[in-house]
């Protein structure tokens, strides 16, 4: 870890101004990923701007029935919040499926969204990685990539996004709220993270200096049945091999509203728009669910060692879809 100047601004504006004065600085909140990467030498900021004590730590209800989770709300507190548990169960479940109790006590909403891939080539400075050092190549392509992407990867990067929380947020139509000196804006979580393309060094659509101030959980998905499920190599404290979040409402025997997102399969939480389109308005028969999921996963391009992720994701999706529809779709 290189030496750095530590700043603790008292307001969002001061924080953004500090960044403007120190381009390339990093915002620090829980630090569970940033400090980890600084120790590895992957992140080498000259200035750290601590936003952990800014007044962004509340979960609040908005007049329209939406819920806003502040950027520095700890993952454990967000998962335990009765409003989140009752209205957005997939989010609570996704948070609790991630990391460990200790890490969830430190990790924040904003930091969780901005966490970087756990690709071992990204973390090892002695190996090529286009995400870490653009132009050096992708070590995982020829190396070990059992855990890597099957959807939307490029020849430049096959890393996955490690977040569980973001998968649930994507399915829930949540929005990321951003603050910058040019003003505030919001971006749907499903569009916030990027596919690698030719620029895997850019994980998200955040602009330099912008600060995540919170996540907006919309009224439209409040109280809609939802669930999250994850498969992993050990029973707890492991990243997803694959995961799925489903938000689903039936009306008159047909699927009226649906959000479906996969984790562990792509460089971003993978919102399954094709599957959703096929499901919307359909009766939730096993055949209809299978057809929709297969339609989505037809885009998968597995690598040498990770073809298993496609049937795994399929099973997970059908299982959760089945649970959220009254007649068991999966026998």
């Amino acid at each position: 870890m290189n030496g750095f100047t530590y700043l603790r601004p008292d307001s969002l504006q001061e924080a953004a101004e500090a960044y403007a004065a120190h381009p390339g600085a990093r915002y620090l909140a829980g630090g569970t990923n940033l400090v980890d990467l600084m120790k590895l030498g992957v992140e080498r900021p000259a200035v750290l701007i601590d936003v952990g004590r800014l007044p962004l730590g509340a979960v609040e209800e908005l007049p329209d029935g939406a819920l806003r989770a502040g950027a520095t709300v700890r993952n454990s507190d967000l998962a335990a919040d009765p409003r989140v548990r009752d209205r957005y169960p997939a989010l609570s479940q996704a948070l609790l499926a991630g990391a460990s109790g200790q890490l969830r006590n430190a990790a924040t909403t904003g930091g969780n969204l901005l966490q970087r891939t756990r690709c071992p080539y990204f973390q090892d400075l002695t190996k090529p990685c286009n995400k870490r050092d653009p132009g050096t190549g992708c070590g995982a392509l020829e190396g070990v990539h059992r855990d890597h992407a099957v959807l939307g990867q490029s020849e430049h990067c096959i890393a996955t996004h490690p977040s569980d929380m973001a998968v649930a947020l994507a399915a829930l139509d949540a929005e990321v709220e951003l603050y910058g000196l040019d003003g505030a804006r919001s971006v749907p979580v499903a569009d916030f993270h990027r596919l690698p393309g030719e620029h895997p060094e850019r994980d998200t659509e955040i602009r330099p200096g912008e600060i995540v101030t919170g996540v907006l959980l919309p009224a439209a998905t409040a109280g809609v049945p939802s669930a999250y499920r994850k498969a992993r190599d050990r029973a707890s404290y492991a990243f997803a091999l694959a995961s799925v979040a489903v938000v689903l409402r039936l009306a008159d025997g047909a699927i009226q509203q649906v959000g479906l997102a996969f984790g562990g399969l792509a460089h971003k939480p993978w919102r399954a728009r094709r599957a959703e389109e096929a499901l919307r308005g359909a009766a939730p028969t096993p055949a209809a669910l299978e057809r929709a999921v297969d339609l989505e996963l037809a885009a998968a391009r597995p690598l040498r060692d990770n073809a298993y992720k496609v049937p795994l994701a399929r099973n997970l999706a059908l299982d959760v879809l089945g649970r959220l529809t009254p007649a068991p779709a999966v026998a």
Partner: protein
Amino acid sequence: MPRTGTALGAPAERLEGRQKVTGAARYAAEHPLSGRAHAWPVPAAVARGRVTAVDTSAARAEPGVLAVLTPEDAPRLAAPEDATLAVLQDPRVPHRGWCVALVVADTLETARAAARLVRVSYDAEPADLTLTMDHPDGYEPEEANAGQPGRVEHGDPEGAFAAARTGVDVVYRVPPLHNHPMEPHATTARWDDDRLTVYTSTQGGTTARSVLAQVFELPEDRVTVVSEHVGGGFGSKGTPRPDLVLAAMAALRTARPVTLAYPRRYLPTVVGHRAPTLHRLRLAAGPDGRLTALLHEVTTHTSRVKEFVEQAAVPARVMYATPNLLTVHRAVALDVPSPSWMRAPGESPGMYALESAMDELAEALGMDPVQLRIRNEPEHEPGTGRPFSSRHLVQCLREGARRFGWDERDPRPRARREGPWLLGTGVAAATYPASAGPAAAEARALPDGTFIVRTNATDIGTGARTVLAQVAADALGTALERVRIEIGHSDLPPAPLAGGSMGTASWGWAVHDACAALAARLAAHTGPLPAEGIDARADTTGRADAEVPYARHAFGAHFAEVAVDTVTGEVRVRRLLGVFAAGHILNARTARSQFTGAMIMGLGMALTEHSTLDPAFGDFPEADLASYHVPANADVPAVEAHWIDEDDTHLNPMGSKGIGEIGIVGTAAAIGNAVHHATGVRCRELPLTPDRILPGLPATG
């Protein structure tokens, strides 16, 4: 009055327990010597080649950096017997991760930051990294690890197998595995003129001292090695690792005490791994289940640095009666990190393969797998023809079957379903050698009625202090509370390592003899004791290591129940039950913890743990504890260990067999066999993770 003569076998509480739960126990990196500096290694970034230049200027320019040791300028060592310790002695890079420079700075943060500024240039060469059964460089070593013959053969195994009506011919694969004790390898070293003191995390301080004396060309009495508390080892601290010599070199160079706590993610390439093993098993049996042929051929890798051959075909020489036996090892030297010991080397992967194949044979014969094993109980050790000093495998199998409820099992695979879960049970046998090495100990009686017993044993978590105090108390005819034990310091009488399940047998023998001699002296003594007390000493050289005409092994039986999720292919263990026959159990409390702890490591081997030798880079991508999955608490269900007390007079004065390793042997096979019983699918490569299990399962629905 406390009772005497009853300490052995009792569930005595760990003597250092209070220190450990209050945080007072100090480990190797926790000795705050005045002026102590910290070291950080620089690992080689190529798999094979030579260091052509090390530019240390940027690192040395950092305020607080005291030195950067390189292959060019590091202190020269006398050539160590173990070539993995010849660090920074020449520009050769034998594998990725090999230490090519060491930064020493006044703080950890500076050392770590400066290590990144060291610029190493290499002349890289093509590397040969991938083990295959038909690798052209494969050879048959004369000896495998632990001095075992590379090949043991009798009868006509090929002919008998070819002639058999019922047989299995299968290949099993065990990946590289890592010990990952919770305390990383660490050494704090200090020189006072020409005296060297180290606090090091080792399983054997006596060896650490002789290695340091040899490489730094010092008389042994100028080297002090302290290892009072050791945060686990599981074989990876069995002999000194590079941290020991690197810390001493750094302290020599800087004239300051130096701590080198090897960073976790650099450990996998530097401190050894369980080598990958490829097993071809051919078993044939008559209709009665008696084995007519047993062929176990193991292919494994070793490094260019030294030959280490995982002795995985050895347990097939111990387990089952057969007139036609072949056990053979083949090794391939590759440009890979050096393999080394990991808990039950040889037995653990070997018995995984053998006991899985036995399950397949039972299925082919339509026979109960417990019965198949009982049917093949040998009269003498098959590999040597020697009689067993004691062997209660059959009793373990029967007792385990009874406790587990094996008789209620429906033998048909895929017969039990619970919602999305398929349930199954499996069994496997276990074996591990029981031996001892020479050790010395001394015992002193003090006028206040207490005793001090001293030997350079190491407690890596086994409860060595406690059990040695129990041995002493009984030999002295005193109460446990009156015995003080001193271990973990090289000024104490020399004793061998905590490893090979030999520690307690070796140390206990010397402690027993010293205490028995002291008791005799006390019996002959009249009047009050002198102020300094009276003492007695014992050295078991020539006795503990004497050849015996017996095959000495512990045995055990494992039973496992698993649930396989048909949605994800995730396997979860529901129950593990082991029954062991390992001589007299000396401390019921710590023994239970050792058995169950090793079974849990076996669970990890079966289900969660693996390293991959990176075919492109030559190291292990699963370099940290987020990616190398040791079992977490949630993975571990009900685990039970039981034992059958054995009265074996051919072992040692305590009548004990080592128990640190047998718990892991057979666990993976029992779990794998249970997975097959649950699913009907035989997966022959560990670990049984969803990517391996799911494709074999029929589609959901």
